[in-house]
């Protein structure tokens, strides 16, 4: 090896041009643009691009609607009415999905949401509860949702059960309890205030849509602007790092499931109002809808990343698909089969779009610098 060292005379690249300054102004400008975009996601441009992909998907669905039923889409008032129908359809699952999004970002999963909605719905429509009036019914639905969520959280964080197992068990148990309480009967809601929640309109828009908007807005603020949201991302993104930074990971986990339960309580009131009744089988498979919507919306199943806006778009895409089948008079069986395919397609399309879009942006930047 001795022949190596001295032979090559040190050829020094001293004639290289002057170094570029470490921070070039164009770069800073780009970062600023990213910051301006960030209201859309709250923490960076990547999510914004993904959400644009979702919007594009939504546009495609509407175009399919226009192509298949040009007669209906020619009527402006029908289009407005149909939009409200889609949003109303999205409202209950949407509220559940907001809670689910927090749980998934926090590194968990909640399979019991549908069952919690059913239990809370059944609990608030028993004869005894209804005797306390609308206030009593709302209070009991929210309390039941919250309490079941807390139990989930305690089992997972202090009982050290895997979230999948703990909430699967809760799913079975809560539906069982709901069937027990209702004696497998449909419980009719006689409270006109509760039933009115589903029918009242403000400025021509159903109250249910306002409730969804309020929950989404609250969820967005909670995730992007509060210490609670910051902890959620930390706990899901790297639990060990969160713990070593002094965050109480266990307590926060309990709070996340409690939040999901609370959302289920709200959803239970909305769903009971829509059906003017509650039963143990209600909100069937809501867990799947909520998880699928969150994932399509860009929430990472492994935790640490996700957006409320993305989840909302995911839910709206789902209800638009359902609506598309309804206006074309197709059966729900066909609908379910196609829906599964569309979940896969949407994710694929979104990935491709996302990749090519970011490549496109990168290339643009390279040319502008």
């Amino acid at each position, binding site marked *: 090896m001795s022949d190596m060292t001295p032979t090559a005379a040190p050829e020094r690249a001293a004639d290289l041009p002057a170094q570029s300054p*470490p921070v070039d102004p164009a770069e800073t400008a780009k970062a600023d643009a990213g910051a301006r975009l960030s209201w859309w996601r709250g923490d960076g441009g990547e999510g914004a691009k993904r959400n644009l992909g979702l919007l594009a998907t939504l546009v495609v669905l509407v175009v399919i609607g226009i192509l298949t039923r040009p007669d209906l889409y020619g009527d402006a008032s029908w289009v407005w009415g149909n939009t409200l129908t889609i949003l109303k359809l999205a409202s209950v699952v949407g509220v559940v999905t907001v809670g689910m999004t927090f749980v998934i970002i926090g590194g968990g999963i909640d399979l019991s949401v549908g069952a919690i909605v059913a239990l809370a719905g059944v609990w608030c429509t028993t004869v005894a509860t209804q005797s306390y009036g609308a206030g009593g019914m709302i209070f009991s639905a929210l309390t039941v949702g919250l309490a079941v969520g807390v139990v989930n959280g305690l089992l997972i964080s202090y009982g050290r059960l895997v979230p999948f197992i703990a909430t699967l068990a809760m799913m079975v148990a809560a539906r069982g309890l709901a069937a027990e309480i209702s004696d497998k009967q449909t419980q009719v809601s006689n409270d006109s205030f509760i039933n009115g929640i589903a029918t009242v309109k403000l400025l021509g828009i159903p109250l249910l849509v306002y409730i969804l908007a309020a929950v989404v807005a609250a969820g967005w603020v909670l995730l992007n602007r*509060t210490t609670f949201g910051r902890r959620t991302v930390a706990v899901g993104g790297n639990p060990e790092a969160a713990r*070593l930074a002094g965050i109480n990971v266990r307590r926060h986990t309990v709070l996340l499931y409690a939040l999901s339960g609370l959302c289920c309580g709200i959803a239970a009131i909305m769903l009971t109002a829509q059906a003017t009744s509650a039963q143990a089988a209600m909100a069937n498979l809501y867990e799947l809808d909520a998880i699928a919507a969150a994932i399509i919306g860009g929430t990472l199943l492994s935790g640490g990343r996700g957006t409320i806006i993305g989840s909302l778009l995911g839910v709206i895409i789902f209800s638009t698909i359902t609506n598309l089948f309804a206006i074309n008079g197709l059966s729900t069986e066909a609908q379910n089969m196609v829906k599964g395919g569309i979940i896969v397609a949407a994710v694929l399309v979104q990935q491709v779009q996302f990749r090519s879009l970011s490549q496109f942006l990168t290339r643009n930047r390279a040319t502008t610098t």
Partner: protein
Amino acid sequence: MSAGNDGEEIEVTNEPLVEAPADTVAGEVVLRLTDVVKTFPGVRALDGVQLEVRAGEVHCLLGQNGAGKSTLIKVLAGVHRPDSGEVVWRGEPAAFANPQAAMRAGIATIYQELDLVEDLSVAENAFLGHEPRRLGFVRRGHMARRTRQILARLGHPEIPPGRLVRHLPAAGKQIVSMARALSHEARLIIMDEPSAVLAHDEVGNLFRIIRELTAQGIAVIYISHRLEEIREIGDRVTVLKDGRTTAANLPARDTPTRDLVSRMTGRTIEYVFPDRPADDPAGAELLRVEGLTRHGEFADVSLDVRAGEIVGIAGLVGSGRSELLETIYGARRAQAGTVRMGGRTLRPGSVGAAVRAGMGMAPEERKSQALLLGEPIYRNVTLATFGRYARLGFTDAGRERAAADRIAASLELRPRDVRRPVRTLSGGNQQKVVVGRWLLGDTRLLLLDEPTRGVDVGARAELYQVIRELAARGVGVLLVSSEVPEVLGLADRVLVMREGRVVREAPAGELDENTVLDLVMAGSLMEGAPA
């Protein structure tokens, strides 16, 4: 060192580890890079790199954090594709589409960030992607045997090939990634800061292996921030600055340090430790640890840290230093003994209690223990303090960014934009984020586990300065480092640990490097691992 746990005999033969490729002529240029450019969104990571590597040499890459060293080797390893420029590998233009292609061409890489699969065994990791097969079945016995051979040659016959990588300590994982690189028939082995997680004697072992490899005509690209290592093992040096080659093929042994540093940084930096204050600065007792014990990790450790004092712990990897620090911090629960802060006993096993009492800890493994890789830099810096910038539970991103900016400036973080995701930072810059986190807020006692791992010469001096200034403001510091000179240079008082026990305690001025090394030797790598 004892033989393998399963009683099987270890073959320690002298046959070459990697078959020397017959057609390799020593001294011939095997790799040549011309004007290689690689950009990421908003960053020109490589901006015209020249590099020439010869068979049988150890070619060192030097450069500050973020200079582009890791990006360069990822281009060579087929992880990134260059935007422009030419890579000539053994006389032919090469563009490796993926890591497999580079491996097939004979380039093996040990990455800066460990890339092992935690839930696979040591042998499965070593042969990941090129398992020996017969009729489509993996030859497990053969694979285990080959792994055992390689581990023995690496000086670690005690690591069982069947053990899950998850259960190895950090240094053990580094050995496994080295074994992986050696399991290929490579003509070029690239090592990106392999010594960062190795203790002193391990580095000696590594150098022995490197000499064996180069004697067979295999080329090695070696990256390290420690100039002494480059002097010892290197043949030629190429220096990168801001993605460009600023000097190529300098002789590694006799280029003056001043020259190397000024080519790396564009200025001259004195690699010195800040002065200790003239009068004894230490104030009231801050931390007192008594009889702390965790079986199999450390036993009966007692120590104290006073306000304004820097206490260093020296010892081998596996001597229980990191475990001790984590136990003091409450991340592990002690089986016996107490930890008191300012006279009050802390609840064992509660990080929350320790943080409330004013402790902060920069842990050993930045990726798994400290960082949210997808989150912006500023959120990582304020991970422990964002609550303080918040009002009524609402976070204040503006104030957090301003605070993170100050930290970024004082630690020379690059790029300086704190809204970038931490994932896009170079290894050394990620380390600065981990340490910077605890420079915010009102930490009274700072526990630092390998704070300068992967940090370049210039930034290291800055970091030492910052730590000294903190101490001058009355913060107590408990420092763990594998680099003995760092412990001796920075600390006021030094504890030497061996096999989980404190074997010596003395003011830093009364110890020298050789004394400490003599004290810490005879430790074994596997002792830190749970059974």
